[in-house]
């Protein structure tokens, strides 16, 4: 390592030691620290355990935590790209990988690409691509864009973000916070949306239940499809929206009083609330559709 970089790294590590309010020994022993550009692309891999990313305003990456038995930890850098890997030493032994628990502080503008098998992923204030086979994903804070996928784990997104794409299989998917465009789907897991900033949303499940509970933005278009799960749309009583609800073989429960139906064909309900500034299209095959109103002053119950 060239002398100046070594000096810089030393300064970074010393500075980190001084900023114990942000990170410190409570998160495990210091595994590595590097000076990086603020827009560094970071690929991370940890099979089992957990991996947490915290976006911060420093131009450096620091990793703390505990590395599992026979797990090799690697933090390497190549220009503006960085790899953070916790890899089991011996593959093919049939034994489950040992759990490593890692916490990485990364620049807020960095772009993550994180992959795990069963390790849970947590990210706060940093965006990118997150994937786990069975781990749970929890992403919070502000980010430019977020792509998150898990096959059997749960996805909990509470983010301020322009664009979110999230896929879950049998696990639950929750979206809160402030997102303008969202493309969300599950196979059999329940899907809940409680964000009032959406302009475009495509929400789909095959057998999971879908619940949308928020104040729709003017000009928003929300498209919801579900095969056999139920769809519940909960709007404030002063909502301005047009709704086109169709179920092939399920029931449609209209909890709106004083709404005017617009030429309803069988098994569908078209109605306008207020000035009709946002649009909801809901379609199911056998799942029931429920439209509910909530008093404006009741607020929105937090998703748990």
């Amino acid at each position, binding site marked *: 390592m060239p002398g100046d970089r070594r000096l810089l790294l030393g300064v970074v590590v010393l500075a980190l030691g001084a900023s114990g309010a942000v990170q410190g020994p409570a998160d495990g022993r210091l595994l590595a620290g590097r000076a990086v550009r603020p827009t560094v*692309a970071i*690929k991370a*891999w940890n099979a089992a355990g957990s991996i947490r990313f915290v976006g911060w305003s420093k131009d450096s990456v620091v990793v703390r935590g505990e590395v599992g038995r026979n797990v090799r930890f*690697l933090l*390497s*850098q*190549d220009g503006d790209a960085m*790899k953070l*890997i916790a*890899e089991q030493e011996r593959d093919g032994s049939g034994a489950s990988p040992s759990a490593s628990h890692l916490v990485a502080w990364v620049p807020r503008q960095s*772009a993550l*690409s994180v*992959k795990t*098998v069963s390790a849970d992923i947590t990210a706060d204030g940093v965006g*990118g*691509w997150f*994937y786990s*086979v*069975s781990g749970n994903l929890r992403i919070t804070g502000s980010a*430019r*864009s977020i*792509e998150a*996928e898990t*096959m*059997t784990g749960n996805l909990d997104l509470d983010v301020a973000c*322009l*664009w979110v794409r999230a*896929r879950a*299989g*049998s696990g639950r998917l929750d979206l809160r916070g402030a997102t*303008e*465009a969202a493309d969300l*789907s599950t*196979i*059999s897991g329940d899907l809940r949306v409680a964000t009032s900033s959406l302009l*475009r949303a495509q929400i*789909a499940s*095959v*057998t999971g239940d879908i619940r949308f509970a928020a104040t729709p933005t003017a000009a928003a*278009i929300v*498209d919801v*499809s579900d*095969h*056999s799960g139920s769809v519940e749309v909960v709007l404030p009583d002063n909502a301005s929206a*047009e709704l*086109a609800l*169709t179920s*092939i073989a399920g029931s449609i429960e209209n909890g709106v009083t004083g709404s005017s139906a*617009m030429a309803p064909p069988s098994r*569908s309900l*078209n109605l306008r609330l207020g000035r*009709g500034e946002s*649009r909801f*299209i809901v*379609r*199911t*095959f*056998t799942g029931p559709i429920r439209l509910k109103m909530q008093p404006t002053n009741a607020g929105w119950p937090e998703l748990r």
Partner: protein
Amino acid sequence: MSDSAHLTEAERQTLADGSMATRQARGLQAHLRACPSCAADVDRLRMIARRYGEPAPRDPVLAGLWPEIRSRIERRKVVPIPPAAASPRPAPSLRRSVLLIAGTAAGLAAAAVLWLRPARLGPGPVSDQVRARDSIQALVLVADSIRSYRDEAQVLLDRLELQRAMIRPEAMASIERDLGVIDRSIEELELAIQRDPRNPTLRQLLVSSYRQKVEVLKRVGNAG
């Protein structure tokens, strides 16, 4: 190189990820030739780096640009579909590519129609004739979209068979469970469409199910 008989951890890792200076790397290659232990370890590190490198995630810069690109696409969506003209059959491989490309384009157009169609529910008179025309056009486009997704799903299923042995058993079980759920929904929808072929909602639901299937199959690449 260190004084000990083997390469240091840093030397092995920088050799493996290619970040070592060429001159220094050349010097250490001699040691690798003479030391099977270090050579095996460096090979293994290279394998880990290579395996980790695939598949490449989305470009973060492109991801940042996506919302604007998406909105531009939405603004420019037009769906003029000329009547099919008789043309000589292309060679099978070429025909498949053409079908996929055309299908994808049709799928995008169908998505545009489905996405934007509710705007027609807004205030202002819309004649029954216009509604009927839109409805037929939407049916045709959705049918094309289904065909496109079905073809893509088949290609991905073939690929899954090739990759099956390399996928972790727990991931494979999850994939098969999800595909089972989706396939049952597709069967139910196709039966319903046979009974009611002009129902646009059924076809839109079928598109949604096929889309889910394609996405599950695409995730297979990440599950290895």
